[in-house]
């Protein structure tokens, strides 16, 4: 029933890497894609990402719904950008090559098309790596990985608890909402918007109360088994770092370095083909 992306077990080099490496890689990669607007770097990252995706032995159909969702979202954004600022590209690149005049302030310029292409590429560069991170990292390894890159194990454990109890809360929500629907509580189109929101509170209140109860039980259980006793803790699911992990980390640092280097070379974040 769940339409969310999650871990897919498979035998590939990327699966064998530690979660720490993948987390590190994903974060460095994201920063690299965020700071640059250099088309060549972004396209390169996207292609490299696709190659890595291929190596991971994941299948296209496993990600197709996610891609559809993200493309829709990007399309809305692109349209939004054009509607609100048809001259954004001209402003950024400083020239104006008109392809076609439409109406009022709307015309199509090469600069605007190029800007929107770059905007798209900024997402496209991250998507393969984000998918890889989610789908090749065992959730059981998340907390240990976060701890290893320097985040307190306490915060790491919050993430572990979130992942552990999502299915339970989902089940609670479904059961509560069915029982409330039987009492005529509806969140659908047959109610006015404000009533829908008000009705949702009738489902959420029992959910909040049972969650607060649950917090109490879980924290007791954790305390009774010595959580927080020491400054550190070990993790049964932690994997030892291997050669491939160091290669991965070096690679991600290299990509970030390229991204930064190109900013210095270009004298700014943009690669400008118009001058």
């Amino acid at each position, binding site marked *: 029933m769940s339409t969310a992306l999650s871990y897919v077990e498979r035998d590939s080099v990327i699966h064998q890497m530690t979660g720490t490496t993948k987390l590190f890689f994903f974060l460095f990669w994201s920063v690299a894609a965020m700071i640059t607007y250099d088309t060549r770097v972004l396209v390169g990252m996207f292609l490299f990402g696709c190659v890595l995706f291929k190596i991971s032995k994941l299948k296209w159909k496993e990600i197709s719904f996610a891609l559809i969702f993200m493309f829709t979202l990007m399309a809305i954004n692109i349209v939004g950008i054009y509607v609100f600022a048809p001259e954004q590209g001209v402003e950024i690149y400083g020239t104006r090559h008109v392809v076609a005049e439409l109406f009022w302030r709307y015309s199509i310029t090469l600069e605007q098309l190029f800007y929107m292409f770059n905007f798209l590429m900024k997402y496209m560069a991250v998507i393969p790596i984000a998918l890889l991170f989610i789908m090749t990292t065992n959730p059981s390894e998340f907390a240990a990985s976060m701890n290893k890159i320097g985040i307190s194990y306490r915060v790491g454990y919050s993430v572990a608890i979130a992942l552990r109890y999502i299915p339970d809360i989902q089940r609670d929500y479904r059961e509560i909402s069915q029982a409330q629907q*039987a009492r005529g509580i509806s969140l659908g189109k047959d109610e006015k918007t404000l009533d829908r929101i008000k009705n949702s509170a009738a489902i959420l209140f029992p959910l909040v109360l*049972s969650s607060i109860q649950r917090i109490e039980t879980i924290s007791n259980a954790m305390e009774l088994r010595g959580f927080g006793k020491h400054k550190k803790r070990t993790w049964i699911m932690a994997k030892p770092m291997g050669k491939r992990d160091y290669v991965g980390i070096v690679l991600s640092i290299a990509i970030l370095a390229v991204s930064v280097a190109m900013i210095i070379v270009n004298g700014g974040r943009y690669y400008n083909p118009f001058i």
Partner: protein
Amino acid sequence: MKETIIEFKNFGYKYRSQAEPTVTDINLKIGKGERIIIVGPSGCGKSTLAHCLNGLNPFSYPGEIIGSLKICGHESKDMGIFGLSKFVGTVLQDTDGQFIGMTVLEDIAFAMENDMVEQEELKKRTLQAADKVYLLDKIESAPHDLSGGQKQRVSLAGVLVNKVPILMFDEPLANLDPASGKKAIELIDEIQKETDTTVVIIEHRLEDALYMGADRIILMVDGKIVSDTTPSELFASDRLAEAGIREPLYITALKYAGVKLEKNMSLQRIQELKLSDEQKELVKMWFYQEKWEQIKEHTKKLLSVEKLSFGYTEKAYNLSDVSFDVYEGEMTGIVGKNGAGKSTLAKLLCGFEKQNKGIICLEGKDISEDNIKERAKTIGYVMQNPNQMISKPMIFEEVALSLEVAHLPKEEIEERVHKALKVCGLYEFRNWPISALSYGQKKRVTIASILVQNPKILILDEPTAGQDFRHYTEIMEFLKELNKQGITVLMITHDMHLLLEYTNRSLVFSDGHLIADTTPVELFADKDLLEDANLKETSLFELANMCGLPPKEFIHKFIIYDRNLRSRREEVS
């Protein structure tokens, strides 16, 4: 007695938020390797005492310790919760709340991870513990792929890894079906024998807990220990009944038969019970003395289910080809293992899910196409936990909710709510906040909130789970009263007492099939059927065999006698 390992001396505990101490004058010594059961009605202070042993009191729930509690020679208040956890391993009641890891492996390793055990040893010890509780093959399973009994075994393994001298179980049976409960107790028994650990079980399901035998039973009432003795001696007295704790069924039966109970009869377990020939004769006389009373037959067909099938995928049906009729005025139990299809059936009847095949008819009319809202006007559903149904702070508002959202006129709402509240005995509390009510009263509020819609059938999911005898009786007598007023009641339950005492019919589900449509008497006399439903034999069965009586008729006799006795008592009071 062997070396003392737990010693309460003039002990008491007062929570910071309470004016009076919750437990007082506790003097209790527990020796190494002893098996102790602490019983008492809800609110008697047994959980407070347990929390004092493992350090949740006062370190998580602040309060003041009066007197002294020594564990393995150390004063408990000087140790802190982590210090105490080296001596006392606790298994809690809530099998999901205490399953913290994402898989069995991680959950068992949790305590050792916190102790910074290095990975190699961590893995070795985790696997050993998993093996001890027979879960090696489930090591990578997530909690939602495990049954309640398996989850509890994981928790047990999680405390075993530290080799603690004291194991404490806080109501270990409350969330388990009888067969899983029996297995859990067997496992505790086995581990206790192997390690000579001291075991303290807090439980009000005494007969089930006693399956492993106990050295002593501590009975608590109103924050004090009122009895500290061997099981046999306790059963020979009337102290349990006075405290509102249910006696084992065979003890009740012997009392009905007029057998005078003595502590030298080995009353602690049915398997060890010693009856003289004269006593067996008494039981026989009681069995033959009164005439059978026939249970009333219901004839008017109310609901009829034909060839009902449902599954999220075509391949795996949760329910397949189920047909049965429900007659007006019935009180029926729906039994079966977890995942046998009971809840699926309830969801289909209430329209929460739609069947793939088959039809549901109410009074001859096909209601398969009705949506949840329409269905609710004839079939009401009451969830197990009232806290998951209550969405308003005040009683009146809560009961009125379904009528308010239907935009009925104010006068009609008030009239119908008042009527439902009167039926549920809550009328005088109508302007109270729900938080001021007891669990049993909250349950009644949720039932009232369903009854305002005037359903003909009520489906209840585990109406008595985790309740002590007093609350059990309160809830069940109320349902019986509703039933008398014409509401047909279907109950999904594991509670064997409920089935015996309050139902006349049992629908048994296994692997999505309805495998038996029978009476509780037949059910409890059929070993295979009981196994399929994850129930277990009652001790009445063995008692009948012991006295050379036919078990089925004996159980029947007991049920009839018991019901008559209770309704007579009711008339007197």
